[in-house]
């Protein structure tokens, strides 16, 4: 065996061992592509399955979305109709609110006028009470005066009776003297002369002069007016001399308003019909008087 052959054998052996080591190392460290492939294929199948499921779910979601959209569209339509209806109701409620506010304002003014009228009535009541007290005091004073007058009248009546009896006695004495004088004159042959009485005959009392109704100047104000029934109430009554049928003239400043013909009289107030109500209408506070 030649030396070259030997060298070749040795080189062949060394290279074979070296290559074998490289191959073993490579094969031992090589990736398992089949396993990787299987894994990838399973992953792909799983992804495809998930995609199909996702597609189905997407379709179901689309159907649900469409159904939900239809339902919501119907609800939107219904709600729009409700909104329209509620808008109408809101407008009507606003109108009612405005009307109620107007009524509240009117009622407030009415209440204010009523309270003012109540204050006036209270003041009138106080005035009437004051006048009543004055009248009671005057009545008491007049009662005393009446008692004194009655006592004086009784005394004077007694005096008159005494004078009457004296007068009768004097007349009897006068007749007696007259008869004695007649007898004496007849005895003397003289005529009987008529002796006039000393006291002249009292002429009959003239008939009482009819009392002419004096022109009374009653003045008052209107305390209440009812234009519907054309009646009004004034602040004076029987205590002031008002009687049924009296006519009052209603004036406001220098303007003539109407006439009031009294048909009901109380102690402190009177009520009458409104007459000749042409241009102006009477109201509370207008002046009332019997004379223009």
């Amino acid at each position: 065996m030649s030396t070259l052959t030997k060298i070749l054998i040795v080189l062949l052996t060394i290279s074979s061992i070296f290559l074998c080591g490289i191959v073993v190392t490579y094969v031992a460290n090589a990736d398992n592509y089949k396993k990787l492939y299987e894994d990838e294929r399973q992953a792909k199948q799983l992804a495809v399955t998930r995609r199909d499921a996702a597609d189905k779910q997407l379709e179901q979601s689309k159907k649900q979305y469409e159904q939900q959209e239809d339902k919501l569209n119907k609800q939107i339509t219904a709600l729009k109709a409700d909104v329209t209806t509620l808008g109408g109701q809101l407008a009507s409620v606003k109108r009612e609110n405005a009307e109620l506010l107007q009524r509240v304002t009117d009622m407030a003014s009415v209440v204010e006028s009523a309270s003012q009228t109540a204050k006036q009535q209270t003041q009138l009541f106080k005035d009437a009470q004051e006048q009543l007290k004055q009248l009671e005091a005057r009545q008491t004073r007049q009662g005393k005066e009446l008692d004194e007058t009655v006592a004086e009248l009784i005394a004077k009546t007694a005096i008159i009776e005494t004078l009457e009896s004296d007068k009768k006695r004097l007349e009897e004495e006068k007749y007696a003297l007259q008869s004695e004088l007649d007898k004496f004159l007849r005895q003397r042959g003289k005529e009987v002369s008529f002796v006039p009485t000393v006291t002249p005959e009292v002429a009959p009392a003239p008939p009482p002069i009819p009392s002419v109704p004096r022109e009374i100047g009653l003045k008052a104000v209107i305390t209440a007016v009812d234009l519907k029934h054309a009646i009004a109430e004034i602040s004076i009554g029987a205590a002031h001399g008002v009687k049924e049928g009296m006519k009052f003239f209603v004036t406001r400043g220098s303007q003539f308003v109407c006439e009031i013909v009294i048909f009901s009289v109380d102690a402190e107030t009177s009520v009458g019909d409104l007459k000749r109500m042409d241009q102006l209408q009477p109201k509370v506070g207008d002046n009332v008087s019997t004379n223009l």
Partner: protein
Amino acid sequence: MSPEPRSRGGNMAAPSNLYTVILALALAAVAAVAIFVAYKCYVQYDTIFGGV
């Protein structure tokens, strides 16, 4: 390396077995690698030479 016996006078000298052992060792290594590679191919791909 021992000197190789030469044939003298037409007599055949016994060849040295050292290089034969080296060759056998190299062959065994190659065979072992081939077996290992075949085993790995079979285990990983269920076949030795590939194909569908």
